[in-house]
């Protein structure tokens, strides 16, 4: 096992990793940018080190800064969290070259799964159904040609990265031309890689993902599914497990097929396979995330397995220590992403100082957040303030606990999406478990909030 881990991330996930390290009895150093000097993870850490200015390019995305910080503080591993350098195979390779461990898949595994387009082909060869799509696009003319072949509407998708950045829904050839340029520049700016491909867009689909864990000895388990269909502009807002879109038989079948495909394709460490499920219940593989996911706590709530600790153990070369039969998912869990965004103003990100801050409690309530009263929310990073998660024996009670917890949650001084969450919970489409990924974008947040206020 490692003796000391450098946490190369910020916000709630830095805090989550710090807690996992403490639980495992491992030392931890929090690497922070100048903008995060007063961040909770840096404040609570036994050791913290400033790695650069607020601009992530020169701090959280700077491989030399992160690795140098690990070297000078005597760490033997780096946990990249999610985003930033977490899926960068080049970074993982350099980390290893400095005799440090990268907590995540090896550089070779990351490289194998780096291109989303190539991963679709790889996992299709291992038995997963994929959505019709293109090869990597050379230019606009090639994009037009491929879109005609696949048939509109299509999604333009960056081959690297995630979080909906650079993704564009295109319904006509005319839209494609301008959207292609925007996606390309967003992908370049966001991920340093402007490779794009097309995917057939399925209206009214569900987003369902399967959590897997594979160690270097070939032991592999899945930890069930998560439904992330409540999205806005391809960004997840609410996640729940198990997915209301699948029957138990379909759920088991999808998880087993996903695990078999990814293990036989040579995957290692924690990973998430994302699928779109259409109205007929067919699941199409779309991409794999080779890192810890934002929404991992709901899986932890239902299985009782600490995924961050498991990830660290796998990276340290330890066997999983649990078999598939040991993984029992109980009850229902929901996660609400609490964002500093104003739903009434087109979800504009908000910055400012947190005034009063009160977290909810009660049975089955968990809050992962880096907020505290007096915390100045920096404007340099994403708007995630925390994740409110609830667990209950069944979905109806989980919704009730979610609403009660959202009522109690107080984040003063900055506009958040707490009320939107409550409105969605009260909406009959959500209660019926029938939300699709495009619903919120199609109708906007106003009808939800208005209905919630009635």
């Amino acid at each position: 096992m490692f003796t000391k881990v450098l946490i190369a991330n910020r916000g709630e996930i830095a805090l989550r990793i710090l807690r996992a390290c403490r639980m495992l009895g491992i030392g931890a150093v929090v690497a922070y940018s100048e903008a995060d000097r007063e961040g909770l993870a840096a404040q609570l850490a036994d050791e913290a080190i400033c790695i650069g200015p607020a601009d992530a390019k020169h701090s959280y995305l700077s491989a030399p800064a992160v690795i140098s910080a690990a070297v000078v503080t005597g760490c033997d591993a780096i946990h990249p969290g999610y985003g930033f350098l977490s899926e960068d195979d080049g970074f993982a390779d350099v980390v290893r070259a400095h005799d440090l461990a990268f907590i995540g898949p090896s550089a070779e595994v990351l490289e194998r799964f780096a291109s989303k387009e190539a991963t679709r082909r790889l996992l299709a060869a291992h038995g997963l159904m994929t959505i019709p799509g293109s090869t990597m696009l050379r230019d606009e003319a090639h994009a037009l040609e491929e879109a005609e072949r696949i048939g509109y509407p299509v999604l333009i998708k960056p081959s690297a990265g995630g979080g909906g950045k650079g993704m564009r829904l295109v319904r006509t050839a005319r839209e494609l031309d301008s959207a292609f340029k925007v996606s390309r520049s967003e992908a370049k700016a966001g991920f340093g890689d402007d490779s794009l491909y097309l995917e057939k867009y399925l209206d009214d689909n569900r987003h369902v993902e399967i959590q897997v864990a594979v160690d270097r000895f070939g032991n592999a388990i899945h930890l069930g599914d998560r439904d992330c269909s409540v999205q806005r502009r391809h960004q997840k807002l609410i996640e729940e497990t198990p997915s209301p879109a699948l029957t138990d038989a379909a759920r088991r079948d999808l998880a087993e097929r996903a695990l078999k495909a990814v293990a036989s394709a040579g995957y290692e460490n924690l990973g998430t396979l994302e699928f779109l499920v259409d109205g007929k219940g067919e699941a199409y593989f779309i991409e794999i995330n080779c890192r810890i996911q934002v929404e991992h706590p709901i899986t932890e709530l239902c299985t009782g397995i600490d995924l961050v600790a498991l990830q660290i153990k796998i990276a340290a070369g330890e066997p999983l220590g649990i078999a598939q039969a040991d993984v029992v998912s109980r009850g229902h869990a929901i996660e609400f992403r609490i964002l500093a965004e104003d739903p009434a103003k087109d979800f504009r990100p908000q910055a400012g100082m947190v005034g009063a801050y009160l977290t909810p409690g009660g049975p089955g309530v968990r809050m992962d957040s880096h907020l505290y009263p007096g915390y100045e929310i920096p404007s340099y990073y994403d708007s995630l303030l925390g994740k409110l998660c609830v667990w209950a024996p069944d979905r109806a009670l989980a919704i009730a606990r979610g609403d009660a917890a959202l009522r109690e949650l107080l984040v003063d001084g900055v506009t958040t999406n707490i009320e939107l969450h409550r409105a969605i919970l009260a909406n009959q489409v959500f209660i019926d478990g029938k939300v699709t990924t495009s619903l919120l974008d199609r109708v906007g947040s106003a009808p939800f909030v208005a209905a919630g206020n009635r």
Partner: protein
Amino acid sequence: MPAREKIGNQSQAEPEGALRVQRDHEAIARLADDLLPALIAKLASSGLGEIEVHQGGWKARLRMPAPTGESRRGAGRALDTTSGLGHIGRGIAGRSRSEERDPRPCPEEEAPCDPNPTVARSPAVGVYHPRGDLAVGMRVRAGDRIGYVNVLGVNQDVVSPVDGIIGSSLAEAGEAVEYAQELVRIELPERSAEADGGRPGRAPAGVVGQA
């Protein structure tokens, strides 16, 4: 100033250029007499950090000087009880929390944000090595290399931010340092001259470091 000299040279060769220069000078005078005092008053009363005004083809931007010490500390007071934790920059360099810089980042993020420009800071995370001949009392110019920080085998220069005199060292040779960590105090010549009883140039080491 080079830019003005260039305009002056052009004006001798081109009558149109001379007219343009005259118009520019008039515009600058208007800005200085009318607009700037109003902007300064506005900035001072607004609490804003920066204000920018566009008028005709001219643009004026005013930025508040970075205050130092306690006045710039804001966020995070609620957690001040955590002082003394083993933060590398705090622990190793021995900075107390009252000496810490404002958590708010500077608008210019390429260089370390610096409320106290008379301290040379680390440009990166790494291992600090002062220049071999660095000594207290030595005169330096802004931009002079006074050491380097080794980042994974690549040396990044530590430079003096101002013209001045080398004061006390705040980090040891071979010490692990974080980004923007204070490394060497630089005493301003006039201040050190006062401290030295009016003698310009060299100042006693014990006094230089106390500013």
